[in-house]
């Protein structure tokens, strides 16, 4: 048993390829845990950042600076009454959130957090991710139809039309990135997520900057399509509050609603990680070739720890800015404790063995976090599209641009 566990440690592949069930399960658990924490953090960050964009304070009551607000929300959702409309289609109503959650989490088995840090590496990686995430629209339509109510049905119909039409633009952008992998010295392209990052490493360029500006345009098409694909603002018509109450999940409450919430945020993380893998070099640190050498390696390997130390420092600044009233004493101590924990994590990341192993994961997560911030930024600044405008953008702008970029990429690949 111990030998079996140890046998994987020396290998340089993912646990799925090595066929090691133990480590694959460990990775799955870690990803599940990490995703849940990310969704909780995202919930807090979204409310805070949106509030600051609108010159409000956001959640401030539960815990210091509202840090415990997502946990309070989760408890509220779990103990809330779970209502099913009496005229609803029971089985479909029950199975819809499960379908959405399963598809949102399944895609993560091919997401490469590092050259070996993925559950497995499939040779159809990108195709698998697009396919499984396209199944989630089924769950949304099932939810909308089974609720047997007008607003959910309208939301579900909008959602299906939107996702089916934006999937095409998304697919074309992905194909032009996959085409770029086939232009290295070996001449064989790959759909595997790890293979795509490795070919960016071999060609010494992130695909967003290859064949400038073709890669950038394809990246832009994908970046717009992925917002529409995850039903987020400014394309959040399926759940447009002002016209459809809450769209397809109007009739859902309590735990089932929280499953939709969880699925939405993990789908956002999933499409962001496709974008990061295909265009922004996945786990590669910035400038691996320009700024190479042992000094730069050391500097970049210290950055993860330094980031956490900075966060801890910010928490301590918050401690000193807390009101000195005795009412706030518990909160001040809590914030100081949070700062100490962040600082300790930062110090842990400075240790050489941890530092070397954590680097890939840190750069990948940092790039995904940038996309998460973009999502919040869009929501805070863009007005919502009308449905005909949305369709016009999808079919008359993104689709032709996607086809054009694909053809030009192929031409550039042959000529250059």
């Amino acid at each position, binding site marked *: 048993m111990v030998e079996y566990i140890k046998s994987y440690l020396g290998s340089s592949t993912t646990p799925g390829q090595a066929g090691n069930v133990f480590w694959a399960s460990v990775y799955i658990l870690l990803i599940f845990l990490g995703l849940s924490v990310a969704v909780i953090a995202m919930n807090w960050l979204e409310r805070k950042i949106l509030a600051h964009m609108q010159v409000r304070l956001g959640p401030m009551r539960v815990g210091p600076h509202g840090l415990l607000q997502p946990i309070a929300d989760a408890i509220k959702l779990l103990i809330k009454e779970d209502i099913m409309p009496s005229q609803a289609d029971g089985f479909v109503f029950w199975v819809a959130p499960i379908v959405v959650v399963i598809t949102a989490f399944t895609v993560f088995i091919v997401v490469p957090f590092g050259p070996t840090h993925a559950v497995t590496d499939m040779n159809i990686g990108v195709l*698998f991710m697009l396919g*499984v995430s396209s199944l989630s629209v089924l769950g949304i339509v099932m939810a909308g139809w089974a609720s047997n109510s007008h607003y959910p049905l309208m939301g579900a119909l909008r959602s299906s039309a939107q996702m089916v039409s934006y999937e095409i633009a998304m697919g074309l952008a992905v194909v032009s990135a996959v085409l770029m992998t086939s232009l290295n010295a070996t001449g064989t392209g790959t759909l595997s997520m790890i293979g795509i990052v490795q070919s960016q490493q071999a060609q010494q360029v992130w695909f967003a900057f290859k064949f400038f500006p073709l890669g950038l345009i394809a990246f832009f098409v994908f970046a717009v399509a992925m917002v529409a694909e995850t039903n987020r603002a400014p394309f959040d018509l399926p759940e447009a509050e002002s016209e459809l109450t809450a769209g397809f999940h109007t009739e859902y409450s309590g735990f089932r609603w929280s499953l939709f919430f969880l699925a939405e945020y993990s789908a956002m993380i999933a499409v962001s990680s496709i974008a990061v893998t295909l265009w922004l070099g996945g786990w590669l640190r910035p400038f691996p070739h320009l700024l190479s050498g042992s000094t730069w390696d050391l500097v970049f390997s210290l950055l993860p720890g330094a980031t956490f130390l900075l966060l801890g420092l910010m928490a301590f600044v918050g401690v000193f800015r807390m009101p000195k009233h005795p009412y706030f004493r518990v909160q001040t101590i809590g914030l100081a404790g949070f700062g100490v924990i962040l600082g300790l994590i930062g110090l842990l990341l400075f240790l050489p063995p941890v530092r070397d192993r954590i680097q890939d994961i840190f750069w990948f997560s940092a790039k995904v976090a940038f996309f998460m911030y973009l999502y919040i930024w869009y929501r805070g600044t863009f007005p919502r599209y009308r449905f005909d405008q949305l369709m016009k953008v999808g079919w008359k702008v993104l689709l032709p641009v996607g086809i054009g970029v694909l053809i030009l990429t192929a031409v550039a690949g042959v000529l250059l």
Partner: protein
Amino acid sequence: MQPVATTFFFYFLSGLTVIAGVLVITRRNPVHSALALILALLGQAGLYLMLYAPFVAGVQIILYAGGIMVLFLFVIMLVNIEKSQKEEQFNKQWVVGILAAVALGVLFVLVYTKGKSLFPDRVAQLPEQSNTQQIAVMLYGNYMFTFEIASLLLLVAIIGAVVMAKKRI
């Protein structure tokens, strides 16, 4: 990595596909039929994976997810569910049905008895890694002409749909 428990997964996926297929034709509610159909198609995708054809499995999921989606919308928009639940489900075409069943049965028996001489003894073991490339070589090399004709057919279908749906072009 060597595959594990192939017999179990084969029977599991086949059973899933067959049961879901039966559900498609026996459910009274057309939406439930559409859901059973997607289950059957997913089971089929799993069988493709077991045949070392990951690309075909992935394409099966992508295409049929979209296809079932459209079917779902047709059901919601065009079929009157209350009416269809009261209607009789099978029309009385026993003769044609029996003929088709007998023909299919004879085909199965023939394949079972003469299969050894008709089909190669064992599946040619293509390396799983190059499955996508192999399909590309077949589609854009060996069967280029048929592939283009199929795409022409699809183009005609698209134009026909636009002409029929839009009054003024």
